[in-house]
């Protein structure tokens, strides 16, 4: 009999409800109706993992599938981990309290590079060998998916296969294949299933490929070594968001989670083409849901959850073609239910301020804008497509509508940035304050400036870029800090840049990093995304012991013809397009949004046989 979490353990840890399940909407099927159990494993704490829309969608779809039981598991916080290790209690799912080693498939989402050590830790706590090569026929298949899967190579030693792209369709195919294989008596064992799975479009089996490196240690190529392993695995993509099932009865947690509200996905993809943005490249093309569909989903979600807020989520919800009339209709429909509507982010224009004002009629919220860079030069480098005048119009409209504080998000450490560009952030904050004075005749507008450290990501125009080193980024942070100190009522938030360096190493890393990841975990690394758990020195030790140089990965400019270790996994964006974008960044030239204009040639629609779906012009009908 496996050991369970006992009263004394649960009484002694923070937030014990993280570990006990039983929430409204959680699904437990009768054992005789379950052929295969998949654990949806989120490598962070419950409150973070429960906020992830991707798993809400998969949990719903997989549990609707006959014979499949999808369960949830999150990373236990360090207090709980200590108790589990002390008493040898395995990590188990919340639904049927199955230890991970007794599941058929354990699927991790790769949201963030700094959660990779938690994956190793969860496997270990769940009784599964962390290295794929050491797993036996008795062990589950460990799979990965999510945004970081476009470069899964640093994790290649640890997972059995990856699911590339949008999971709605391909995960059902994987589970069907798994059930058939299990029913047939698991022919060929694990290898037998991998050979079956690799034939499904969007599946990547890392053990079927062998990487080759150049003498100067750069990546040369990756060679398929097994039959049926495609040279390039393209992402799976849902063609029409209206025909795909969206969960209308998600789990409602007992406690407060990070995004504690209805999350209604209005569209997928974004083609604004910001050159730093990974999501903007890997989720193309834009595919909207119809307003009627969204309104129908919203009604069901309100009825089924009891939540009092609907967040219209997407990569840039203000760009939704039917936003204003839809928000209007929703506010009207749900007024009596005391349900408010919110947007996770605002575009920098007065249209958005007007929408924000309408939304605020129900519940008050702060205003946040993301100019991303302080100078016009830098905003052109990153293709933000926003001018100072746009920002002044937006904040002016906000101040005229009664707001007296704004938050502004920026990045520092961007390509081609010099000190003047950094100082321009402070200048912009000053101008925003002056705008408040112009509009209201009063002083004392509060401006919160948040400046994060830019991390170059694969499949973006900046994948060739050498990230600023620690010294340089710190110098820039202090430069900005000193400047902002001289302005009243402006506060600056910035994070320790060391995490950004480790994130950069893994974002553009290769398979050799697996060794460093394993070493870092063995040295105690986990919850690296949490500043109180992160240790930079531990990572430096791990790199040194693995014989790897962090700067080779993070702070090295790549040449035009250097092959990248992630190019056998593809979101469909062409390398030529990205290179051109990189050149245009240097030249400070803009690239327009293809959503309502001509094609800019990223290659996704043609490569994947999909097209943009946008309902602009159909609003009045």
């Amino acid at each position: 009999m496996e050991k369970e979490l006992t009263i004394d353990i649960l009484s002694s840890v923070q937030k014990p409800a993280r570990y006990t399940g039983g929430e409204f909407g959680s699904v437990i099927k009768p054992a005789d109706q379950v052929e295969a159990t998949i654990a949806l494993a989120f490598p962070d704490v419950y409150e973070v993992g429960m906020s992830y829309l991707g798993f809400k969608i998969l949990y719903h779809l997989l549990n609707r599938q006959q014979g499949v039981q999808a369960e949830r598991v999150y990373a236990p916080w360090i207090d709980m981990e200590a108790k589990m290790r002390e008493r040898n209690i395995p990590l188990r799912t919340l639904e049927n309290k199955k230890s991970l080693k007794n599941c058929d498939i354990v699927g991790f989402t790769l949201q963030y590079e700094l959660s990779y050590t938690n994956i190793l830790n969860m496997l270990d706590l769940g009784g599964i060998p962390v290295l794929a090569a050491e797993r036996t026929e008795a062990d589950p298949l460990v799979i990965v998916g999510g945004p970081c899967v476009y470069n899964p190579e640093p994790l290649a030693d640890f997972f059995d296969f990856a699911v590339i792209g949008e999971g709605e369709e391909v995960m059902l195919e994987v589970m069907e294949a798994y059930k058939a294989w299990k029913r047939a008596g698991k022919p060929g064992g694990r290898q037998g299933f991998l050979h079956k799975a690799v034939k499904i479009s969007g599946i990547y089996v890392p053990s079927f490929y062998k990487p080759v490196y150049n003498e100067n240690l750069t990546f040369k190529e990756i060679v398929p070594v097994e039959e049926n392993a495609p040279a390039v695995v393209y992402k799976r993509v849902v063609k029409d968001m209206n025909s795909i099932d969206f969960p209308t009865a998600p789990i409602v947690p007992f406690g407060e989670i990070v995004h504690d509200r209805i999350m209604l996905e209005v569209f997928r993809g974004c083609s604004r083409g910001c050159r730093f943005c990974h999501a903007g490249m890997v989720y193309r093309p834009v595919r909207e849901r119809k307003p009627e569909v969204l309104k129908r989903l919203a009604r069901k979600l309100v009825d089924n959850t009891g939540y009092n807020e609907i967040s219209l989520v997407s990569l840039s919800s203000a760009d939704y073609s039917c936003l204003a009339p839809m928000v209007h209709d929703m506010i009207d429909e749900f007024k009596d239910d005391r349900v408010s509507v919110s947007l996770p982010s605002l575009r920098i224009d007065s249209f958005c301020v007007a929408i924000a004002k309408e939304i605020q009629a129900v519940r008050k919220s702060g205003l946040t804008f993301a100019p991303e860079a302080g100078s016009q030069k830098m905003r052109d480098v990153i293709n933000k497509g926003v001018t100072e005048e746009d920002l002044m119009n937006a904040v002016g409209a906000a101040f005229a509508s009664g707001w007296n504080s704004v938050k502004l998000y920026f990045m520092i450490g961007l390509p081609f940035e010099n000190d003047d560009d950094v100082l321009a952030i402070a200048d912009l904050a000053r101008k925003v304050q002056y705008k408040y004075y112009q509009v209201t005749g009063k002083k004392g507008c509060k401006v919160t400036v948040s400046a994060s450290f830019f991390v170059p990501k694969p499949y973006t125009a900046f994948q060739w870029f050498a990230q600023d080193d620690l010294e340089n980024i710190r110098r820039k942070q202090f430069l900005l800090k000193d400047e902002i100190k001289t302005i009243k009522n402006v506060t600056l938030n910035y994070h320790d840049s060391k995490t950004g360096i480790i994130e950069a190493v893994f974002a553009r890393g290769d398979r050799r990093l697996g060794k460093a990841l394993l070493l870092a975990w063995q040295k105690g690394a986990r919850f690296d995304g949490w500043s109180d758990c992160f240790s930079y020195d531990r990572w430096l030790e791990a790199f040194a012991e693995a014989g790897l140089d962090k700067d080779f990965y993070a702070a090295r400019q790549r040449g035009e013809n250097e092959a990248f270790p992630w190019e056998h996994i593809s979101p469909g964006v062409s390398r030529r397009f990205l290179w051109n974008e990189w050149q245009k960044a240097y030249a400070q030239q803009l690239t327009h949004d293809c959503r309502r204009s001509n094609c800019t040639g990223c290659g996704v629609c043609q490569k994947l046989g999909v097209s943009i779906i946008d309902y602009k012009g159909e609003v009045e009908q």
Partner: protein
Amino acid sequence: MKLRMQITKDPEIRFISHLEYVRTIGRAIRRAKLPAAYSEGFNPHLKFSLASALGVGVVSYTEFVEIELAEPMEVENAARALDAALPRGIRVLAADAVDTHHAALMSQAAGAGYRVTLPFSENVSDAVAQFNACQELLFKKAAPKTKIGYKEIDVKFYIPHLECVQNEEKTIFTFDCKITPTGSMKAVDLLNALNEQYQLNLPVAMADIERLRLYRLGKKGQQLPMLNNDAVRLS
């Protein structure tokens, strides 16, 4: 009109906090579409309250929620609708209705009956006999918000009598604990007080605490159920 329902906090969800329990019931009221009243103002909230707060880890078969309705609704239908909208670990056992200005259940609760199950330990029956015979048992309960960090209470004031049965594996205590307008005491503090006073080794961390009953007092001091005699029972 005010609906009053007896609900549970079953073992499977015992580790949710009181605040989480309250939030869960609030959302269930909305899902059940009960015609509940809302407060005025910018952030309107549902008008409902619980009769008493339950500690994290404590199971209860006798929690009470009072819901103020904006328009009347048939009691049984309301109880069934709420039951269906609650998560598995919370069930509606019974319900009645009173008028809006009826005294709150919270102000009427005079005591709670508990059962505490522990792994077996030695010398318990003697200690229980001494406890039942003594006039007063002072105990310093933790009070983190005070300057000195504790508050001295007389355990016997709250728990005049203790029953105990033991077998080779378990010790089971049952007792009633007084609830006063200024507060009550936690079941776990009874165990701490027994350990301290009688040098017992009760494994307090392993205590399985269940609240079995909540009651009010009649004019003659007799225990009365919280809900009216005509309350609807759900089976």
